C-alpha cells in the first residue's frame, strides 16, 4: 500500500494550536511534521517596556503555566543585575513552583491525556462492586466505594443516552488500541471526575501564597512582596499557613493514593508503550529549587544526557552554566521567520515570513532550539533521568521502587509511557517538596529572618540576563537585554519550543516529530496512537509560539489522504 499522509489539525486537548502531519506506511508512522499554527508576538510586545514589569506580562503567554513565566522572567532580571534573593523569598517561590507543578500534572494526567487510554463508554460495562474491590487492593483511598462507582456509572449512562458525549471530539471510544478492562475504565473515569477537587485545592494553595491564581501577584525583582507576620491577622499569618499546609497535605495524599496507583494500573495494561515513542533521546534539565540566596544549591540538579547514555551524563549545577549559556541557538531554517543562521537568544530576532505549509521548506511558527547543534527533549523524563544519573537519593528511591513494581528498567523511560510515568513520579516529589519548603519557611521566620526582598532599582546602562526554570513541561528560559531601563530584546525558549521544534538547518527532526516514527496506526481515520505519543509530552503550544489562527478554521480536522 502506498504511504498516506494523515493531518491532525489541530491536535485536541492541548493548550494552543498544533498541527501534525504523519506519513503512514505499512501501518506505521514513517515521517512526521510538527507545525505550530500560531505566531508568537510576545517578544515584540515587550520591547521598550520596563524590565521589572516583564514578569507580569509574560504570565499571559499561556493559560496553563502562568506562574512559570513569572518565575523565569523575574530570574532573568535578577541574573542581569546579579541580585541575590533572600531565603524567605526562595522558599515562598519554591512552594509556588512545586504546588503549581502538582496542579498542572494532575490536570494533564486526568483531563488532557487519560481519555487516550481510558474508554469512557466501555466503563459502562463495569461491575461497580468489582471496581471497588480492585480499587481497594490498589490503595486505601477512602473514596473508592461501590456506591461511588455505581453513581458515576449511572451519570455516565445518562450522558451517553442523551448524546452529550459528542463534545469529546477526540474521544475514540471502542478503538482497537483501547485495552483496559471495564473496571479499570470505570475506576479511572471516577477519579477523572474526582481530580477536579484536588487540582482546585492546589490552586487554592497557590492563591493563598501568591495572592491570586491564575496569575500570581507577589513577585518583585529581588524577592517577593508577600507580607508574612505569624501573629498579625491582616497578613499571611500562622493560621493561614496552617490552612496552606492542610491543602497541600490533602493534595499529596491524592497523588500517592489515587494518581500514582491509577497511572501504574494503566501502565501495567499498556506495557508495549514502554517500547514506543522514544524519538530524540538527548535530554536537558536545569537545576530547580534554589535553597540559598545566591542560587548555588538546588534540591534537584540539572544536566545533559546524550543519546540515552547515562554514563556520559554531564551535570548542570547552576543557572549560570557557561556551556548552556554559550551553546543555545535557535534555528529558523524550517520556520516562518526571516533569517538563515541559527542565532543565540540574546541576538534572537522575531521577523515573521509566512509561506504556507511546505514540509520540505518552512512549515511552522515554532523555532528550533538546539544545544550545541543537537535537538534536546525536555520535560519530567529529562529531569528524572538526570537526577537519577546524578545520584539524587529521593529520585533514585522513587524510580527504583516503581521499576521493581512494573518490571521495567531505566531504558524503558525513553518512550511514550516513560514520559507519563516520569511525570507521575515528579508529581509526588513536587507535592513533598512543597510541604518541606513550607516547614523551612516557618523555621526561618521563627529564627528571626524577616527579609523578603532585596529592594532593587533598575540602573541606567546596558544589561543582559537569562532566567532558567525547570517547569512542568521542562526547561524554560527567558533571555533579556535591557538598556537604560527599557527592554531591548526579549526571547523565551520554552519547553514546548524544544519539544515541538521542526527540523533544523541540518535536517534533524524535533522531539515530537522523531517520537512518532515507528508508532503503529490501527486506523488511519482514528489516529489515537499519534495522540497518545504527542499528549505524553504535555504539549502547550500557546507559549511555544503564541497567538491564535485568525482564520477561524475548524476546531478539529483529521484528514487522511
Amino acid at each position, binding site marked *: 500500500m502506498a504511504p498516506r499522509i494523515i493531518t491532525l489539525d489541530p491536535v485536541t*486537548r492541548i493548550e494552543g494550536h498544533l498541527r501534525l502531519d504523519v506519513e503512514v506506511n505499512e501501518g506505521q508512522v514513517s515521517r512526521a511534521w510538527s507545525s505550530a499554527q500560531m505566531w508568537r508576538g510576545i517578544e515584540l510586545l515587550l520591547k521598550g517596556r520596563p524590565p521589572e514589569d516583564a514578569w507580569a506580562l509574560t504570565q499571559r503567554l499561556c*493559560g496553563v503555566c502562568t506562574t512559570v513565566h513569572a518565575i523565569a522572567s523575574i530570574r532573568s532580571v535578577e541574573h542581569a543585575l546579579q541580585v541575590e534573593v533572600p531565603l524567605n523569598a526562595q522558599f515562598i517561590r519554591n512552594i509556588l513552583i512545586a504546588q503549581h507543578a502538582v496542579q498542572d500534572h494532575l490536570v494533564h494526567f486526568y483531563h*488532557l491525556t487519560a481519555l487516550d487510554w481510558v474508554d469512557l463508554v466501555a466503563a459502562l460495562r463495569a461491575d461497580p462492586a468489582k471496581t471497588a474491590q480492585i480499587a481497594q487492593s490498589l490503595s486505601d483511598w477512602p473514596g473508592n466505594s461501590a456506591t461511588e462507582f455505581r453513581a458515576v456509572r449511572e451519570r455516565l449512562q445518562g450522558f451517553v443516552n442523551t448524546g452529550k458525549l*459528542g*463534545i469529546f471530539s477526540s474521544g475514540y471510544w471502542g478503538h482497537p488500541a483501547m485495552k483496559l478492562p471495564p473496571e479499570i475504565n470505570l475506576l479511572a473515569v471516577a477519579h477523572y471526575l474526582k481530580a*477536579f477537587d484536588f*487540582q482546585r485545592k492546589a490552586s487554592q494553595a497557590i492563591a493563598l501564597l501568591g495572592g491570586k491564581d491564575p496569575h500570581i501577584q507577589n513577585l518583585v525583582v529581588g524577592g517577593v512582596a508577600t507580607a508574612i507576620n505569624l501573629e498579625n491577622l491582616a497578613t499571611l499569618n500562622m493560621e493561614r499557613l496552617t490552612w496552606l499546609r492542610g491543602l497541600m497535605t490533602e493534595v499529596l495524599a491524592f497523588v500517592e493514593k489515587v494518581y500514582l496507583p491509577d497511572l501504574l494500573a494503566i501502565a501495567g495494561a499498556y506495557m508495549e508503550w514502554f517500547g514506543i515513542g522514544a524519538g530524540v533521546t538527548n535530554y536537558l534539565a536545569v537545576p530547580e529549587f534554589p535553597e540559598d540566596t545566591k542560587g548555588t544549591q538546588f534540591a534537584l540538579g540539572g544536566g545533559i544526557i546524550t543519546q540515552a547514555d547515562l554514563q556520559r551524563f554531564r551535570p548542570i549545577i547552576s543557572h549560570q552554566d557557561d556551556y548552556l549559556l554559550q551553546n543555545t541557538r535557535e534555528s529558523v531554517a524550517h520556520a516562518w521567520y526571516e533569517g538563515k543562521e541559527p542565532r543565540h537568544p540574546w541576538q534572537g530576532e522575531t521577523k515573521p515570513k509566512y509561506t504556507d505549509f511546505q514540509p520540505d521548506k518552512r512549515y511552522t511558527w515554532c523555532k528550533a532550539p538546539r544545544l550545541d547543534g543537537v535537538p534536546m527533549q525536555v520535560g519530567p523524563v529529562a529531569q528524572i533521568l538526570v537526577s537519577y544519573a546524578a545520584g539524587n537519593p529521593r529520585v533514585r528511591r522513587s524510580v527504583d521502587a516503581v521499576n521493581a513494581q512494573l518490571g521495567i528498567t531505566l531504558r524503558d523511560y525513553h518512550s511514550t509511557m516513560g514520559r507519563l510515568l516520569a511525570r507521575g513520579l515528579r508529581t509526588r516529589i513536587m507535592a513533598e517538596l512543597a510541604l518541606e519548603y513550607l516547614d523551612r519557611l516557618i523555621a526561618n521566620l521563627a529564627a528571626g529572618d524577616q527579609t523578603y526582598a532585596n529592594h532593587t532599582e533598575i540602573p541606567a546602562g546596558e544589561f543582559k540576563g537569562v532566567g532558567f526554570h525547570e517547569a512542568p513541561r521542562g526547561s524554560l528560559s527567558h533571555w533579556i537585554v535591557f538598556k537604560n531601563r527599557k527592554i531591548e530584546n526579549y526571547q523565551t525558549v520554552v519547553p514546548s519550543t524544544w519539544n515541538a521544534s521542526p527540523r533544523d538547518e541540518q535536517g534533524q527532526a524535533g522531539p515530537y516529530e522523531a517520537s512518532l516514527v515507528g508508532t503503529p496506526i490501527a486506523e488511519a481515520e482514528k489516529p489515537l496512537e499519534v495522540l497518545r505519543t504527542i499528549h505524553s509530552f504535555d504539549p502547550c503550544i500557546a507559549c511555544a509560539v*503564541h497567538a491564535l489562527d485568525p482564520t477561524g478554521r475548524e*476546531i478539529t480536522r483529521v484528514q487522511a489522504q
Partner: protein
Amino acid sequence: MKTLILGVGNELLSDEGFGVHFIRHLRTHYSFPDTIELLEAGTLGLMIAHKLEEAGRIYIVDALAAPGAPGECHRFTKEDFLLNRVPVKLSPHQVGVQEMLLVSELRGRCPNEVHLVGVIPASLSPGTELSPVLQACVSELARQLVDELRAGGVRVAPSRKMDALEAQ
C-alpha cells in the same frame, strides 16, 4: 444564588482579550453585591473548573471567531454547549470551556444557567489594546448585562470610584 461573570481570552492579542477587558470595565464602572463574582481568567480552561461549580449561574464572555461584522454579539446557553449545537467555531479555548462544563455536568455540579456571550473581533494581532470597534462594544455590552442582572433583582450601583473620578 451566586453569579460568576467570567472573562476569558488572551489580552496580548488585542480583541482576543475582549473578555478580560470586559471584566475590568465592569470592575471600574459598577459596584456589585457579594453575590456577583467577577473573574478574568485569561486563557485557562480546565484549571478554573471549580470556579464554575461554586456558582449558581454563569456568564462566560469571550471573543468569537465567526463570520460576521466585528462587534456583533451572539449568545448561547448551556444546552447549546452540551449538545454541541454552538453553530460557530469559538476561539482555541472553546474545547477547554466546553469540556469543563461537561465534566462539571458529569460530576453533577454544573450550574443550570450558563450563558455564553461572544463578540466577533476586529483584530487579533499582537497588542494589549482593544480595537476601536470592540472598545465601543465593551460599555454597551456591560450596560446590557447590568440591565439583565437588575431585571433579575440584583442591585448593581455605579461605581463610587467613577463618581470620584468625575468629581475631580
